């Protein structure tokens, strides 16, 4: 059991975060500008817009789609996306018959290079506990109703493989360019809690 305090009159965690940064900065162990750069990267440069490019390319280039499903890491790296929490990427394809959804029950493992940092719902104890046990019910509560005959496959990313769902291309988006298609692809669809809608 942790020796650290719990409950009681602990200082607010926001103040403890400030204290921690001050202690490390004073000792020369972290540089605020390094923290700034790191934060900026995840706010501005890495996020679901990367994964959306991968999906749109797979929708419009069947050779790429095949490579993506056979070796996700290499195919995603073709578009320039790689790095920590994307060491080995596995892409799982949703079809008329199969719906895939991804979770990390033990912590918050998530494919950073293609999706950025995970949203709150992905880290919520309700999602982590229930998506492996009541996936259809929970997906319904999150706004995704699946047909009874759709096979549901839930992927618990418990090791260092990272999963990206390749959603189905929506009907009614036939004439769109790859770039416009990427604009339709949402983070939630690439985790498997939503489908992609036509504009």
């Amino acid at each position, binding site marked *: 059991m942790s020796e650290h305090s719990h409950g009681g009159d602990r200082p607010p965690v926001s103040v403890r975060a400030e204290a921690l940064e001050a202690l490390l900065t004073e000792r020369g162990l972290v540089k605020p500008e390094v923290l700034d750069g790191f934060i900026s990267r995840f706010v501005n440069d890495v996020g679901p817009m990367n994964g959306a490019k991968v999906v749109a390319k797979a929708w419009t280039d069947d050779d790429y789609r095949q490579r993506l499903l056979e070796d996700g890491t290499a195919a995603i790296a073709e578009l320039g996306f790689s790095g920590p929490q994307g060491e080995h990427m596995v892409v799982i394809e949703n079809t008329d018959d199969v719906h895939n959804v991804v979770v990390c029950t033990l912590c918050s493992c998530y494919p950073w290079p293609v999706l950025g940092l995970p949203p709150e719902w992905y880290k919520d104890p309700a999602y982590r506990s229930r998506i492996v046990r009541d996936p259809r019910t929970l997906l319904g509560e*999150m706004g995704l109703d699946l047909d009874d005959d759709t096979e549901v496959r839930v992927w618990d990313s*418990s090791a260092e493989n990272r999963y990206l769902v390749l959603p189905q291309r929506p009907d009614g988006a036939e004439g769109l360019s790859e770039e416009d298609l990427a604009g339709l692809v949402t983070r939630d669809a690439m985790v498997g809690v939503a489908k992609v809608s036509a504009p």
Partner: protein
Amino acid sequence: MDGIHDMGGMQGFGSVAIDPDEPVFRKEWHSRAFAIGIMSMGVSGTNLDAFRHALERLHPYDYLADGYYGRWVACAEVLLTDSGVLAPGAVEARARKLMGEQVDEPADPEPNKPVYERGGPGSLRPVDDPPAFAAGDRVRARDLRTSGHTRLPGYVRGRTGTVSALRPSALLPDTNAHFEGENPQHVYTVEFDSTELWGDGAEPAALLIDLFESYLEAA
């Protein structure tokens, strides 16, 4: 360890809502906590598995009450005090000073960083021995119990499934988290039927999970 973090199949947490307008960081301090959490691994001379184990060792009350980035703050503090970078109580003392209280801050302790050599960047590592299992094999997740770190969740222990895929071999978190060696192993995606995990009344579904070879036995 059998801690609050092992949430698969727990009940009582209610439902979850998606905020379509959620920013990357909802509060400024969330972003600082994230960056400091990442840096704390290098500063403390530890690793990602030790980081995850530090999260698991948080008191269950703190784990839930502090929220996601609150856990990162507490976890960084655990790693930094374990490795002798900061004294126990140093963060709380500084926080109280920031809040205007008169508090003596503890002196820095003796450094106590783990002496540990990494086998390379990242977690993927070659394994010389051939894999014990192949796609299609029936396997049982062993009913292993440890008070240390593991990536074998409680909800699959003792349950029987089918190997779906062999994945790249990787260092074993169970020993790497404790600086006891990387011990690379083969990793398998194993598919379990929902009724095997949750009983006859389970919702129809397949559960696929990545398990290290030592977590598995032939079934």
